[in-house]
């Protein structure tokens, strides 16, 4: 991607965030109040015509109890990583609070993430010889669609408990045409994540949270490919791949600070890194068992 175009896109994203922060506020305020609830890992969603503009996520309340969101990081991946398509990884999420009573709320959400990574598979790549023809590239398209059900229980004015489950289905399809071999194929992996969050409001600004996430089920992953040996011989290969371990978990103490419009959510915990935007999990060993949470956003 052209460097100037990257800069322009970055500026556009930053402008959108700052414009949102400077717009005339609606009736909604972001302080922790009875009406204003945490949105992440809870059953609550934005009010109608309410915005959330953040570093990690952009959301809009289409109707009462129905919000539309998109995660920013997958889009921005296209700006920083050459292997990604220029548009990054387009994604949308719909979340609906189906039930919102005084002490209990229930929501469902559905997300769709698409992406493509391409890389040079030329035998000369290790000699830093750039790929020059399309045949020397391999590309993998993936489609991720997490679906979540979350419940929230208000114990009292200060304490709430949120419990949920997210089922993430993933499909990846790849193709490559190295010099004398043709390979293409697909992979499927499904996983179930259970999560819970304990929320303790210390004041209208500060809320402490303790989030736990657990991956009790990861399907066996089967990657399917076609292998061309020569003009008369080929093979369909199905490969069992262990992408993730069952029982990945994370325990993350954190806090959410909420002012008139600005909000900061941060936390650092122990365990695997659950990548919210795509519903996937980075094994604990990759990040040294550090599981972070961070978002800065305005809500108006």
């Amino acid at each position, binding site marked *: 991607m052209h460097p100037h175009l990257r800069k322009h896109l970055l500026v556009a994203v930053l402008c959108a965030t700052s414009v949102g922060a400077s717009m005339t506020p609606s009736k909604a305020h972001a302080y922790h109040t009875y009406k204003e609830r945490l949105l992440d890992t809870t059953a609550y969603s934005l009010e109608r015509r309410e915005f959330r503009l953040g570093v990690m996520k952009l959301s809009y309340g289409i109707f009462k109890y129905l919000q539309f969101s998109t995660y920013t990081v997958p889009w921005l991946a296209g700006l920083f990583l050459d292997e990604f398509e220029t548009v990054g990884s387009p994604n949308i999420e719909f979340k609906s609070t189906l039930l919102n009573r005084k002490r209990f709320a229930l929501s469902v959400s559905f997300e769709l993430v698409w992406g493509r990574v391409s890389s040079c598979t030329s035998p000369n790549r290790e000699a830093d010889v750039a790929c020059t023809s399309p045949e020397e590239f391999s590309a993998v398209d993936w489609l991720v669609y997490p679906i979540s059900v979350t419940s929230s229980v208000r114990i009292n004015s200060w304490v709430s408990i949120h419990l949920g489950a997210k089922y993430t*289905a993933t499909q990846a399809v*790849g193709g490559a045409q190295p010099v004398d071999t043709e390979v293409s194929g697909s992979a499927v992996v499904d996983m179930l994540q259970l999560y819970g969050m304990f929320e303790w409001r210390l004041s209208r600004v500060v809320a402490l949270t303790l989030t736990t996430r657990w991956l009790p089920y990861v399907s066996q992953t089967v990657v399917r490919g076609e*292998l061309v040996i*020569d003009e008369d011989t080929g*093979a369909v*290969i199905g490969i069992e*791949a262990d992408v993730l371990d069952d029982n990945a978990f994370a325990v993350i103490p954190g806090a959410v600070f909420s002012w008139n419009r600005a909000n900061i959510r941060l936390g650092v915990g122990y365990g695997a890194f659950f990548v919210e935007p795509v519903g996937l999990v980075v094994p604990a060993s990759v990040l040294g068992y550090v599981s972070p949470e961070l978002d800065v956003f305005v809500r108006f």
Partner: protein
Amino acid sequence: MAASCAETLDVPPAPEFEDVLAAYANPTAEVSSAIMAAVADELLALRDQLEESEVFDEILDVIVDVQVELDENTDEKGNLVVPGLGTFPAPNAVLEISHNCPGWNPNDAGDSAETSGSVQLTMVLNLGDIRPVVWGEAAQCQFSAIIGERALQSKYHGEIAVHFGHEADSPGSVGDEPISTSEPLRDLVATFILLGTLEVEGKQLEIRRSFRVRDGGVIEILWELGSEGSFVYVFNPGTGSEQWIIDANCPRDEKNEPTCGCKLEERECTLISGSISW
């Protein structure tokens, strides 16, 4: 809404080789004039058909080509690297191999599976190594065997099962462990079971037998006699004088070599107990 249903790796059951391998290691029949009189002609016909068609070479070529491809895609750490799909450390995998047979005219580029037949084989990887049994079937597979200066038109139609194993310490026995992708399969003992029709120059032969190809080209045919047990006939293709019998009374020696000669054309075997003819 799109839906996804994760698959599990479906590993089809391979044909059983346990009894066949045991029969090669410990032939239980006591070869006699009566037995040889009953089976010699059929045995001779099978030997000639195998020798002329070299059907085993045609099958081995397909398997070895796939093995070489796997080996080229396996890095020094034992990872199977599939460009575009990823790197798989010591994977379990199933390969469904399809091969269009070469046909009877190697210059005819238009040959396809419809005209020249095909071979479908299943190969299973176990933690990156090849499981010892590769199996499948051939559908009217046409190929030419070059014998001297003659190209013999051959065809096989039927089931195929091949077991690859190392020579074991016990004479006649072979190992049953998975084989590394880097190990030359032709150096191993390849035990075949063919259930089908083998045709050479229009002459058809129903074959429901096991035979074994050893490194060096020696071929062993396992001949089962039902309640009378089984014996092994050994020959070296192209050298009609090198023929042997292995039975309950003529075991292999400590070097795994047969000890009793047997010339089918001359209708005579030289056993430990003496010569028999029929």
